[in-house]
């Protein structure tokens, strides 16, 4: 992990309230280990918002890294104001990575909302490694999508309102696809309700799944103990440390679906 003052190469809207920002961040790009890692962004120099904001790395190539972000609150809105040429203070790369997507199974990549950032990243890794896969991207409505529904290329979009791709959630094509591909391995990132559904589905159908989860982060580097998610362990000692709770910033953000609990 490195702190780098990175020059903004581009910053542009991709879809409704969804933006992409590219940074020249050679040091972070050099240390980057793979799809799933994130950076922690200092959006304002003032101390009114003391905390950085974590964002998944959507791509990392030739000294550049990019993020895809959704306008959520003050700091993501502030991000949209940044102009290319300005610099931002980035801390990264942080966290662990998707694994075993290249172990011969058939990857089904699932992204919901901005959760598609690390998924696009993994898609590229599959492409580069000539691994066949299917990708499913869900959104509430068509205006949040910025890639095309191309079933012929195994890229499926879904929308809650049916305005683009298939109507419904990502579970609709997933269900169908898993029946075809007995060797499926799910990789998913998205809002918690989606991850819950995917997790339950994977467990019920005995399919392996890796989920990229989110949590509120104070530091991103193990200092604050703030970012925990509950582990699913049958027996937890009364006096334990990091058995029941795992640090998303250090141990995650990628977890096997079986290993975590959402309540």
């Amino acid at each position, binding site marked *: 992990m490195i702190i780098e003052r990175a020059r903004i190469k581009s910053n542009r809207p991709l879809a409704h309230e969804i933006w992409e920002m590219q940074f020249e961040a050679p040091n972070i790009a050099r240390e980057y280990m793979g799809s799933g890692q994130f950076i922690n962004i200092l959006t304002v120099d003032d101390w009114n918002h*003391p905390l950085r904001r974590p964002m998944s790395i959507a791509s990392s190539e030739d000294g550049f890294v990019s993020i895809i972000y959704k306008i959520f609150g003050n700091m993501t809105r502030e991000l949209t104001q940044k102009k290319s040429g300005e610099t931002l203070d980035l801390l990264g790369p942080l966290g662990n990575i998707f694994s075993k997507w290249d172990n011969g199974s058939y990857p089904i990549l699932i992204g919901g909302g901005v959760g598609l950032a690390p998924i696009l990243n993994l898609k590229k890794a599959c492409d580069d490694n000539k691994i066949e896969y299917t990708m499913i991207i869900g959104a509430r409505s068509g205006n949040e999508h910025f890639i095309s529904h191309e079933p012929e290329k195994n890229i499926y979009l879904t929308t809650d309102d049916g305005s683009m791709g298939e109507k419904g959630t990502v579970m609709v094509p997933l269900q169908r696809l898993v029946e075809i591909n007995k060797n499926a391995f799910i990789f998913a990132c998205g809002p918690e309700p989606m991850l819950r559904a995917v997790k339950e589905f994977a467990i019920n159908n005995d399919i392996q799944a890796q989920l990229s989860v989110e949590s509120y*982060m104070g*530091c991103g*580097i193990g200092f*604050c*103990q*703030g970012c925990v998610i509950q582990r699913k362990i049958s027996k937890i000692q009364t*006096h*334990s440390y990091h058995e029941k709770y795992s640090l998303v910033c250090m141990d995650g953000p990628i977890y096997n679906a079986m290993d975590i609990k959402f309540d």
Partner: protein
Amino acid sequence: MQWISNLTNLTIHIGNTSFENPIWVASGTFGYGTEAPELVDVNQLGAIVTKSITRQPREGNPPPRIVETASGMINSIGLANIGVEKYIKKLLPIYEGLSTKIIMNIAGTDIQEYVEIMEMVESVSSAIAGYEINISCPNVKKGGMEFGVDCEMTAKLTETLRGITERLLIMKLSPNVSDIVSIGLSAENAGADAVSAINTVVGMSINAKTGMSDIFTTYGGLSGPAIKPIGLVAVHKLYQQLTIPIIGIGGIVSGEDAVEYMLAGATAVQVGTANFRDPGISENIIDSLKNILNESNRKVAADLIGTVQTH
């Protein structure tokens, strides 16, 4: 004029212990000092106060544990920590190799727990410089909070621990009281070498959209620049009445902030929340403190202590 910079003297003393500089990192905001060696040279720090240690390891509170507020944040970690046994086995050996001073922060739910922890550490040889006693964590039920608001309990705990160690004994005070000075005086009279102030201020945050409390435990501890005025009052009031050194904490993010705390009466300061944003910030604060001293007539950091001019 590089040579001028050499004239500044940042050394400060607490009890018989001297510290190379007055910029420490605060308990719970810098892990065990071993988390990010790539990002910060811990040997530059005046001291590291390690995360509160309890007798047994603790998982801490369920999430959400953290939320940002205006110029601050609320946390309710619930003293997640590795427990004293692992602290002794895994961390003390590492601390032997550091040139910075280590202050071990201890938390407990009753006097017996504090005593056990300290006796275990005292029974082994180690390089730690002393103890900071957390009697003021707002996030744990029975988490020492009783001590922090009660003079008698504070005196009793201090006295008991004083009997166990000759190392530095620093009592960490809570701001969530009517009268922090009387608690500080109890600690001083019972033999503490110093007090540190302040721990976090009890705070709450609500999401107006969802109607949910932002923190699992409903209340948590407010920290960051928002509380600097509260920390400064505590330090200034304590300085008027106590004779032992005061360690200032609360919202320090710059060299100027450190100077303000020293002017108010702090012998040293601790940087907390700011570490989350910039793990190397304490090194910057040390540099900035040096520059401020250089540009003023006073080259000796200790000369700042308590010299604020009031009207």
